Each structure stands twice: as C-alpha cells, then as structure tokens.
C-alpha cells in the first residue's frame, strides 16, 4: 500500500548552517521539527511493517529526540566528516529505524530504501552498521558501548581544539549495563563538557517494565554524584528538548545528561502503537490504523 504520509517529499531546502536553524523564530522551528517527526514516525512504521520485524516501541519513543537533534540542534550533515562536526551515537542500536527515518526525511537516504530494512545486503541493517552505511556514526547493537566511544571522540576533539559536541542517545534499560557507568565516571572526572547524553527514559525494556525488572533508583542523583549536569524533561516536547540541549551546551564545565521522559510506541498525545511493546510484530490493521492517525495530525502544530 502507499504510505499515507509522504516522508519522500523533500524537506524545505535543507540548510545545514546551524545558525540558520537556531535563529529562525521559535514557532517556525517547532513547526518544522514537529512535521519532520511525524514524517519520521510514518517512515519508521512503514520500514518495520515491510520488514516484518523490528523494534517499533523503542524506535517511536525516541523519534522526537532524534528529530530535534538532527533537524534543529546538531551541527550534522551527511557530507561533513564527523571529525569536523558534531557526532551522533545511537547507543540503543535497536532504535535504528528512528535514525534511518530521520535520514530519509532529511533527504540523505532515498525513499526507495524504505523497503530494505533488515533485508540481506541492505545498508539498513537491523542494528546500525557503519561499515555498510557511513551515515551511521557508530555501529551499535550490543548495549552499553556507545557512551564509551562518545567519551573517546570527545577527548579527541578536545585534544584537537575542536568545539564540536558528541551526542549519545541511550535507552534507560541500557543504563543497567556496567560499562555505561565506567564511561560516566571518566566523563565526569575529566569534565568532558562536550559530551551530551540523552536518556530515552521510556520505562520499559524487553521483558517488561523497567521498574519491575531492575529499577534505576535515584537516576538523576547518580549522575550528579559523578559530577554531571542533569536535566529531566518531557522527551516528547520539542520545546523542552530544545531548551535542555541548549542548556547542556551552555554548561562549559561538565558533561550533560538529559533524562527525557518518553513513552514506548509514542505516536502522538494519547496515542501509542502496539500498546507500547518493545518489538512486537506490526499487523496490517495496526499499521494502517497508526498511519491514519498520523495522517490526521498533518496540519496540527506540535508545541
């Protein structure tokens, strides 16, 4: 079937000058990222529907975060070497469709690739593989590793006198991995202010609710203890995310974490896909229903 929302429609002329994006009037920026996020959600749904498997809930919970980063906050373009620009590390690699969707919406991937997710020889591997797609900054999938690489990149950028930022998106369940805290320790101790960690805090993981499987007691306090700058925001509010990321960059003394409260499978206010499941199969009925819902939101604004 034809997608009801065309993520293939080119975005208003991509302008990779960050100043241009950030200096637009705020309502313009919010309208743009809101529209792009909805297109990304449609792309995520179609990719996973056509693949027959994939992490719907985990991808949809971070589409807003990725959209704000990619289309408003990061100095990232497909053509610039990452050693001379911001870096985006998707440590929760199972949300790969959310990143691929942003690339499609941004015009860096052709819409014809939407049906290739998880197929043999595809650039759109089930988890990101930069040896097959160089629009991925880090191959990930086994959890807990992304922040360490972010720390290495940030140290290199500081050594070379670069002012770029390294953004790392991790899942909340992923914070159960011990290696994350090894990297948190180093970033805090070395005051790596060019590291920004965004935690997609959707509250659930593979086997169920995070609070039941292994709660993250005192999450904000933990980061503060390691001398991080901590913000706790609504991860579906683009305005809140923009503010938090700007604050994170403004803090020149510490690494920053943005704990973004999200919902697994988020499609819009009051609407989630697949009852917030981690990676359940998307049926035709559910797919079409979700696409119709997004179609109905086309002209809404997204504060």
């Amino acid at each position, binding site marked *: 079937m034809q997608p009801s929302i065309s993520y293939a429609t080119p975005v208003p002329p991509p302008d990779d000058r960050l100043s241009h994006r950030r200096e637009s009037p705020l309502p313009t920026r919010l309208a743009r990222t809101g529209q792009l996020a909805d297109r990304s959600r449609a792309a995520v749904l179609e990719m996973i529907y056509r693949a027959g498997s994939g992490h719907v809930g985990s991808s949809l919970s971070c589409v807003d975060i990725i959209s704000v980063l990619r289309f408003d906050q990061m100095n990232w373009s497909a053509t610039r070497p*990452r*050693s001379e620009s911001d*870096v985006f590390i998707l440590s929760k690699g199972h949300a790969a469709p959310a990143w691929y969707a942003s690339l499609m919406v941004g015009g860096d991937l052709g819409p014809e690739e939407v049906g290739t997710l998880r197929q043999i020889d595809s650039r759109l591997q089930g988890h990101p*593989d*930069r*040896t097959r797609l160089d629009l991925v*900054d*880090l*191959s*990930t*999938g*086994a959890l*807990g*590793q*992304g*922040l*360490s*690489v*972010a*720390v*290495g*990149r*940030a*140290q*290199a*950028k500081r*050594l*070379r006198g670069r002012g770029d930022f*390294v953004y790392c998106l991790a899942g909340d369940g992923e914070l159960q991995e*011990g*290696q994350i805290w*090894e*990297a948190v*320790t*180093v970033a805090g101790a070395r005051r790596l202010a060019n590291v920004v960690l965004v935690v997609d805090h959707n509250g659930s993981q593979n086997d169920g609710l995070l609070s039941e499987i292994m709660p993250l007691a005192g999450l904000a306090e933990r980061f503060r203890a390691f001398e991080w700058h901590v913000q706790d925001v609504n991860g579906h509010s683009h305005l809140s995310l923009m503010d938090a990321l700007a604050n994170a960059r403004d803090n020149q003394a510490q690494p920053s974490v943005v704990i973004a409260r999200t919902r697994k499978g988020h499609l819009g206010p009051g609407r989630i896909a697949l009852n917030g499941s981690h990676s359940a199969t998307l049926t035709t009925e559910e797919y079409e229903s979700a696409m119709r819902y997004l179609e109905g939101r086309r002209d809404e604004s997204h504060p």
Partner: protein
Amino acid sequence: MKATRDWFGESLADLAAEHEDIVVVNCDLASATKTAAFRARFPHRFFEVGIAEANAVGVAAGLAQEGLRPFVASFGHFLTGKYLEIFQSVGLNDAGVVLVGTHAGLAIGKDGPTQMGLRDVALMRTLPNVEILHPVDGVETREMMRHVVGHRRPTYLRLCRQPQREVHDPRHRFVPGAPDVLHAGRDVVVFSMGGPVGVVLDALDTLAARGITPTVVNVSSLPVDAAALGDIVDAHRRVFVIEDHYVRGGLADEIARIVLDRGHRVAFRAWGVPDYGQAGDPRDLYARYRLDRDGVVHHLTSFADADLATAPR
C-alpha cells in the same frame, strides 16, 4: 636480552615524537605494559581511564574515529576478555585501534591463570579485519611498530613479559603475513610464534646430535600467507606447531586449516597448554607444560620416531 614489551615501550615513545596522532589509553597498568615512557613525554596524549577495560576499548574506538591512532594497552588476558566490546566498537566499526596485549603465555608465572594471556589469539583471530602481530624479538618489535603506525586498521599486538633472545639480523624487514624461516632443515617443519620460537632454536644443537634438523618458522603475524606457508609445508613430511597459548584455537588451528584446505599429505602434531594453566615459577611451568627446551627435544624426537606409514593418508 629484553622482553618485547620493553622494546614496544621504547618504540612507542620514539615513534610518537614524529607521529602526533599516536595516543595511549591506559587502564592503570602503564608500568607493566611499558607505556609509562610515553606518558612521561606526551602526558596530554595519554588517557587514563582507570581499571575499566571495556570502557578503554570504546574510548580508543572513539579516538580512532576522530583520526588518531590509539594504543590501548593492558594484559592481553584482560583486554581480550572484553571480546564483545572489541567485536563491536572496534571490529564492526573498523576503528583503527591498536589493542596491545602484554603478558602472553605462562610467563607471568606465580600470578597464575587469571593473569595469563593464553587464549587471546584464539579470540582475536575470529575477527575478520583484525591483524594479529606477535613479535619474537627487538628487531621485529620495532619493525612491527613502524608497520602499525603506517596504517589505520584494527590490530592486536601480542607481547611477552619474559626476556627473549634476538633471532633476527638488525637488517631484517617485517612483511605482514609472510612466514619467517629462521632455520632451514628437512623432514619436519616447526611453526611457532613469540616465546617458544627462541626455545626451539635453542634446542637445535641437541636435536642435531640425534639426527633431527627441523625447519623453524616464525609465524609472527596472522592471517598468514597461506600460499607461502603451503610451499614450506610441501617440502616436509611432518608439521609441528608449538605455542605458549591454549592448544585449542590458536596458531595450530590456523595452520591446520591451511594444511587441510590445501590437501597436504603430511603428519601433523600440535603442542600448547591443554588446561587452564596454574601458578608457579615460570621455569617450573614451562618444564611442566613441556614448553621448554627439553620439551621441544622430547616432542620432536617422538615425532621423528613416529611411523608415518600409519598416519592417515
């Protein structure tokens, strides 16, 4: 005589003066892994991460992605224990990290098997883009270091703690993958890497007195050139592999695969560490595990006496 870890430390500091992209990631083992000299000269290029090897591997991958040439050094046993992190952050990203694993083999002695690099080669040779380098002496260590700083591929550099004799002329040039014939003999060819190479050479006089003159080949880098190795095998009837590593998964498996792939009609024997290892004086350990000179004489004598007619053809 010096240990290859010492040659490495000197070479690293020397090369870093002309290669500004060389950086070091340390896990609280700068003295043992001999990166302390680098730290003294280039402190701003030395990144301490504490006792956290998984993180060190990731940090090094990030440094490499930014165009630097990071050396992350620890005991080989600890470093390659972070196999999942090496697989993904280094291997699957093709990140140009040099993983430096020291204290290969039984030589750490009294600290025992939790510190011994005895299965590091087995792990690293599963990764298709990782080059394994295991120098046998100072000449080869310095040559390998020049090779390593000249490219950006993931590398595992395996180093020994014990002093080793120089087996190469100072004019020797290292060629990646090339089997390095140190002694030409007949009937039996011995393949080895690192520590046992010198031990085999030390046994040549005793063996000669018994009428055994093995060809001795230093296989100091993997993957090895299969055609060149096969040509050497072709000139012999018996192949013996001896390694200071678990007998499963290491050099013997690499060579056996090549011999079988090419259909060589030779008798094949391998010797290494068959169990987890144990603590003890290194001299006692090498004697117990028959990886010393007497052990080499024993293995090659019994192999020479074996009736090849009964070997499967």
